[in-house]
């Protein structure tokens, strides 16, 4: 050992263990191999997420579906629900939202009425009592009206013209989208080796192009680029063009990836 050399790698004793049957060198090797594998897996996950986000962000409707999908995923933490359960959950959310909307309308009318009445009442009282109280009465009435309108407005924005017909169509679309997304993930996974090899060998620019091509090809294969916007109940709803999502054809790793890599 040379005098004063820099330590460039370290494995804590707790991780290395004290298994005398396995030489330290081997244990160190195993540790680094496992660490590298984890690193590589993490790197792949990042690439995968980037590929995935590229697809999602390329289309506003897809982005919306994906956000809804994510929302559903985060609400079901305990057991991974089936697509059917997810959709059922989504449907219940819609039903709840429609019910809340109706109730909000009732509340709005009631609160507007009560606000005006309380305002007028306070005016009457305040006229008898003092001018100051009159202003307070007006303020209270106006505040009540404002708060209700604000709350209602927010809710309206959130439930943006939901309807049962639209809900059903949206459900269908979401189901197709879920299938396509799952398939897309499978395509990325099945090409893991090719992607990682390309990442290692290619320059940043080349790899970026490679990823773009991969995205576009897969996107096309899955029919994810063929979502169209149609009118349902006077509302614009994104729907996939029928027969465009032919997800069964993409079971295996995409051909031609090896060639592109070279």
């Amino acid at each position, binding site marked *: 050992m*040379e005098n004063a050399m820099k330590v460039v790698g370290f494995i804590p004793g*707790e991780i290395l263990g004290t298994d005398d049957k396995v030489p*330290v060198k081997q244990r160190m090797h195993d540790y680094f191999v496992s660490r590298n594998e984890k690193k590589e897996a993490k790197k792949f996950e990042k690439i995968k997420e980037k590929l995935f986000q590229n697809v999602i962000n390329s289309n506003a409707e897809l982005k919306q579906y994906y956000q809804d999908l994510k929302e559903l995923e985060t609400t079901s933490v305990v057991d991974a629900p089936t697509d059917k359960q997810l959709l059922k959950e989504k449907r219940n959310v819609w039903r709840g939202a429609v019910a809340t909307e109706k109730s909000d309308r009732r509340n709005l009318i009631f609160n507007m009425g009560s606000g005006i009445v309380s305002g007028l009442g306070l005016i009457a009282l305040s006229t008898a009592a003092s001018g100051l109280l009159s202003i307070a009465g007006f303020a209270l009435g106006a505040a009540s009206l404002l708060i209700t309108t604000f709350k209602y407005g927010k809710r309206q924005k959130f439930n943006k013209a939901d309807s049962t017909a639209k809900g059903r169509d949206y459900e269908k679309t979401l189901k197709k989208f879920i299938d396509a997304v799952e398939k897309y993930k499978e395509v990325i996974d099945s090409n893991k080796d090719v992607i990682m090899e390309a990442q290692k060998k290619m320059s940043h620019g080349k790899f970026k192009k490679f990823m773009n091509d991969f995205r576009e090809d897969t996107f096309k294969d899955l029919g994810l680029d063929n979502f169209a916007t149609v009118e349902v109940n006077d509302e614009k709803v994104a729907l996939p063009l029928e027969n465009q999502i032919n997800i069964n054809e993409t079971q295996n790793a995409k051909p031609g990836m090896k060639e592109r890599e070279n």
Partner: protein
Amino acid sequence: METIFNIGDAFFLENKIEYQVYDKVEIDENTYLVVRQVPVGNKNDFFDIEKFPLVLVNEKLDGEDVMIEKVSDEKILEKARQMGVIL
């Protein structure tokens, strides 16, 4: 005195050679590490760990870097030999 490395820890230096900490020893109010080069070997190989002697080293910080320095002070080495931590 506290040290960065503890008994059982392994580390490797710029020259790619790996070491494992076998012991810690206090001499003249300084704490030294007793390390041994990690022998090459895998599950199926036999190896002779004694080929690699225990070495007394001193660890120190140089900015963000951890440096390992072989103790060359004969007085300290002699004390370590007397204590039986190195040959």
